[in-house]
């Protein structure tokens, strides 16, 4: 078991991290090149970069957006995300792990108490988000399996983490929890670039993509008509 844990938190973790990193760089580059392609094809390329940048940034610190719609849900979502990002990176054992595996050393780690609080808010938040998704008519109607699955999956390393750091809870199950903890983390890393979690990297691009998509290529309508084998527009044929 120990060897397996060693392997998972060592080579396997490094592989998963590499897949995650390169996968994210890949989707990011592809999306940026998409924007470039769109603007190249379009007749007019004036994009309000400044305005888009301001709106995008405003969503990183979404104070002004929170009170407008689904306030509680939005607040919890921010707490949930805070733990998701901070604990894997800055919890003491993780800092050591990053250093050992990738040579990335932050030079500091977060206070244990903060890590515990964030872990609890993430778990509590995740459960709240799942319930709110299932109980709210609107979001239940638009949610599919993966929308529930990924949130649940993200909670696994946090729940197992609680078990491991608590002597009482960990008494008999430490190794099992450790295994589950490491495996789920590895699985998440691998899935990030290929699933909706890719929004960790793609999130800032949405508004640029939409703005570029509103720039229409010249003559596209005529080409569509030709591709569809029609000779005249409907509007050119008397009713």
């Amino acid at each position, binding site marked *: 078991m120990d060897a397996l844990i060693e392997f998972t938190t060592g080579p396997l973790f490094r592989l998963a991290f590499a897949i995650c990193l390169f996968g994210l760089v890949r989707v990011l580059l592809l999306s940026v090149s998409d924007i470039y392609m769109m603007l190249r094809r379009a007749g007019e390329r004036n994009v309000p970069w400044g305005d888009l940048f301001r709106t995008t940034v405003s969503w990183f610190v979404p104070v002004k957006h929170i009170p407008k719609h689904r306030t509680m849900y939005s607040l919890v979502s921010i707490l949930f995300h805070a733990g998701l990002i901070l604990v894997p990176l800055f919890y003491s054992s993780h800092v050591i792990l990053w250093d050992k595996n990738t040579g990335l050393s932050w030079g500091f780690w977060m206070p244990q108490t903060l890590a515990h609080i964030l872990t609890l808010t993430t778990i509590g938040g995740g459960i709240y988000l799942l319930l709110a998704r299932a109980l709210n008519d609107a979001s239940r109607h638009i949610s599919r399996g993966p929308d529930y699955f990924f949130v649940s999956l993200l909670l696994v390393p946090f729940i197992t983490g609680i078990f491991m750091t608590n002597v009482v809870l960990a008494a008999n199950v430490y190794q099992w929890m450790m295994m589950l903890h490491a495996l789920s983390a590895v699985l998440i890393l691998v899935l990030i670039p290929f699933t909706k979690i890719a929004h960790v990297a793609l999130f800032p691009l949405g508004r640029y993509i*939409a703005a570029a998509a509103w720039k229409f290529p010249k003559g*596209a309508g005529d080409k569509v008509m030709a591709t569809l084998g029609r000779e005249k527009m409907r509007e050119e044929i008397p009713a």
Partner: protein
Amino acid sequence: MNSITPERLEKAYAIPKKDEVVKAQKLPVRYHVENGVETEDRPEKFLRAMAAILKHTNYGFALDHFSRVTAKCARCAVSCPIYEVTGKPEHVPCYRSSMLLDIYRRHFTLGGRIRARITGDIGITDEIIEEMAGSYYDCTACRRCTNACPMGIDHGLVTHLGRWILAEIGIVPRALVVSTREQISGDTHNTSAIPLPALLDSLEFMEEEMEGTKNAPVKFPVDQEGAEYLFVAPVSDYMMEAETLMGIACVMHATGGSWTIGTKNYDAINYGLFYSDQVLEKLVNNIEAEAKRLGCTKILVGECGHASRSAKFFLNNFSKICHMPVVNILEYTHDAMKAGKLTFDKTIVTEKVTYHDPCNIARPGWVVEQPREIIREFIPDFVEMTPKGRDNYCCGGGGGTVSIDEIRPWRTTIGGRKKAEQIDKTGAKIVIAPCANCKKQIRELLEDNEMPVELVGLHDLIYKALVLSPDGVAWREPEEDDFDWMGGGEEDFKPPEEAKA
């Protein structure tokens, strides 16, 4: 303000078509389509049309991104004026978009096709198409929900695309096509089929009218070669919104602006924006051609949201010749006021006034503050609606739906409900809406909800309050029969639909 009774609701949702028609067309939607809509193999045809559009346009990139990041958080739901009133899950913006995004994923991506093999998902069906046909015209493409989406998904863009694909397989409201057909291949080249002599007549009448009320020789210049601005207004204004146009003419007079109306193309309306990029392109090209013909260097668009947006954001996009600045009349008037060229009589408009932001010019943050500054200049009792500006509520007639008369009960009971509540809350006696479409919708909204509020354009009030004559008097009461021509004139002009019938 009337409440929403079960009877009103029933009417709003009712399909105003005979059962046989609905069955024959396989279209359980509230709007009429033209005869001859094909029903066979619709899913295949839809996919073919979608493939062709994705091939030649940029939409595929957006669909790809949107379907990758959509978090399904439903924050958009509570920002949509339709969902807020109906509370029906099918009116959640994200759900509406997901119909098309799912089709994209399933049929146009490798992962989707593989997944479909495994799960046996057949993808698009007749039922989904019917649902989209209804849904994409319930949405007014007002893009309010986009402000609420953390991921920046533009549901208005998806609706825009969905409508185009549907139009390519023959599903498009008759009201829209009838108008654009007249513009593209009719004799009059304008949506209301107003012949040139009638236009000239109405200009002459308005000039006489202004001579009387303003005591100044205000003109509507026609075919003036070399004028700086080509002026285009929604053509219906020449029949319905004379005061708006007279207000604009007075501003141009006061500023000594060099402008002209073109006789070959005097309609700013562009319903292509609402269902087909091909039509959109043809119509903006027509405006550009008219500007070129007359040697104008700028386009000045009258009080109209969608017309301003289609010219401003797509004229240079589709331009054949060169880039040309597009100016909305509110910008022009605002600049003139700032330059000290306009003098107002502040005692003319005394009632409490509120202002409605047309989505097409306010959502991008283009025309938001200018009208407010103008209003504050001469209207002492001005009150804002909440929310306003970029975050405003649609009037309920956006996306061309206002021209679909058969859905009026829907528009005035559901679509415009939020707007009616907003207006009601302000306690204003006058609501300003500087847009031909918003004007028609809000008028109907006020009427059907029995609200004693008057709807005007901003230039209607400017017309009254602007001081033009040397004696400093802004307004002389018009003679009793001055406006007879408007009522009498209407018989000459049949809407194109009837004219063709």
